[in-house]
């Protein structure tokens, strides 16, 4: 009767997921042990479990293409604007090198991948941020790709799903970066006007100007368990207030309690929960 038993599911159900080209998605550097429970982690187990610790369910970071494999039905993801990459428009020291290294290490031109996809048969526009790329900070091109995705969603009348991770603004792009907050918020405002569904999925970590713009403006805001979500990072707050913060501060569960989230969803359940939300919003399942 009830489709909603979020948070109660054991992870082994992941075997039901469609895998697609997930096996190729080995690009995430894998720690030797779980950062949470210190259990040793085998690469194969991690891939199997979409980078969730099989022992304590700690959700490790997922690369953009891994995430797409997790969410999109097999072979349905069509990237757009995949050729866009950033340049050092302010001639900011070291930015060229950092961009180059990020591209080399992640294999991505920028910190976000956008495209169209099907999720359990429902058409969506999907954007996925990848924190390996300069902590997925939002420069002009990240902002641009988000706006273009929102505009594609409006054009197609397909829901927009944004899987978010970010350290905030990209300081190396100065005010051009800050202004992406206004620009993406404006694009989302148009999406709301057009009556198009927008779901954001906040993953670890989602902070700063990204949280304080498009990521918080979704109709439904979902987060992964224990994800750090906050405007100001905990270290800066600790420096300001000069004492230590409680362990759960700015964690997904904390935000849920404080009214900032709709749902906290295990990675194993994410796809089916998104599909349910799409169905509830009249998504077409052809």
């Amino acid at each position, binding site marked *: 009767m009830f489709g909603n038993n979020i948070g109660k599911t054991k992870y082994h159900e992941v075997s039901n997921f469609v895998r697609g080209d997930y096996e190729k998605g080995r690009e995430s550097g894998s720690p030797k042990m779980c950062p949470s429970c210190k259990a040793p982690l085998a690469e194969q187990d991690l891939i199997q479990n979409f980078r969730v610790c099989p022992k304590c369910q700690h959700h490790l970071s997922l690369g953009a293409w891994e995430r797409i494999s997790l969410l999109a039905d097999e072979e349905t993801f069509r990237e757009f604007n995949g050729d866009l990459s950033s340049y050092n428009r302010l001639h900011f020291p070291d930015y060229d090198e950092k961009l180059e290294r990020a591209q080399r290490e992640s294999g991505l031109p920028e910190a976000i991948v956008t495209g169209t996809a099907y999720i359990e048969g429902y058409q969506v526009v999907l954007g996925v941020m990848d924190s390996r790329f300069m902590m997925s900070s939002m420069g002009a091109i990240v902002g641009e790709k988000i706006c273009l995705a929102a505009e594609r969603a409006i054009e197609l009348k397909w829901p927009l799903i944004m899987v978010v991770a970010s350290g905030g603004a990209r300081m190396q792009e100065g005010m051009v970066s800050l202004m992406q907050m206004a620009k993406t918020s404006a694009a989302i405002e148009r999406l709301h006007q057009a009556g198009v569904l927008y779901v954001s999925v906040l993953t670890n970590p989602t902070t700063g100007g990204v949280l*304080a713009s498009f990521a*918080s403006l979704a109709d439904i805001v979902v987060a992964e368990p224990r994800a750090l979500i906050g405007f100001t990072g905990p270290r800066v707050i600790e420096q300001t207030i000069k004492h230590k913060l409680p362990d759960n501060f700015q964690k997904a569960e904390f935000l849920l309690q404080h009214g900032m989230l709709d749902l906290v969803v295990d990675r194993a359940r994410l796809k089916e929960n998104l599909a349910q939300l799409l169905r509830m919003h009249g998504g077409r399942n052809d």
Partner: protein
Amino acid sequence: MTKRQFDFENQYQIMKQKVEDLMEESRIHNIDLSEEIALLENKMARIRESKYKNLSPWERVLLSRSLDRPGAEDYIGFLCSEWIELHGDRLFGDDQAIIAGLGMFHGMPLTIVGHRKGKTTNQKLQYNFGMPHPEGFRKVMRLLKQAEKFRRPVLSFVDTSGAFPGIGAEERGQASAIAETLMAMVSVKVPVISIVSGEGGSGGALALAVGDRIVMLSNSVFSVASPETCSSILFKDAARVEDMAEASKLTAADLLELELIDEIIEEPVGGANQDFENTARLVEESILKHLRDLNDKEPDILVQERFIKYRRIGSIIQP
């Protein structure tokens, strides 16, 4: 050593005092130095003028943060024949880091919002050094709705080191409050003029700066993160603040060149800090000019143009 205070004006005043002492001395001793002293004073004035024209980005950062920098209350007092401060977000509190209310400007009622830092120690504490909590942004949103209802233009003054980094602010949704303010600002169906009068720091500043026109005073700054933050995060080196102030392109001149702002108000010699009246007069003229421009526009056109203004920043498409 990197300077942490803007001290030129102080030094200049000390010098000036010394020249006056010399003049006095010479008068007592009946030695006529008036010609030489006039030359000296002239030279000094030129040095001062040139200094203020050529402040480094970091000096502008310091000047914009100086205690004697005029703030929203000062401009409101100068610009408005009447003023009513309104309070509260109708949800949780009244954030005094943001001043908000109705001002009568040249016979025209305006909704005015702005950061407020305070001057005395008591005020600074009361206003939380101009660093807003979510309540402040929600008060702004409440007044934006009323501005729309009454078709009243909005004027904002930007001057904050940023939104407050604290537990309560996070608990009550600092990010969500800023995001929703950005969305409300960008879509409100009345003219919005933003004056960056002091320190424009990060998202907490931007939330009040999404105007149809962004006007910056020549010694104000606007940046994604303070030079201190940039240098400590990017280079783990607090000493690089001057570099970072330069590299971040945070001055009015840099931002105009980047087409991120619309106008610079050239402050008189000594800056707004030393010559508030003349600065305020220039602000007044600027607001009048932009209001004349914007008041004629149909609300839909106004909002559409504002959308494009922000949509095109760092965009691959040129609408």
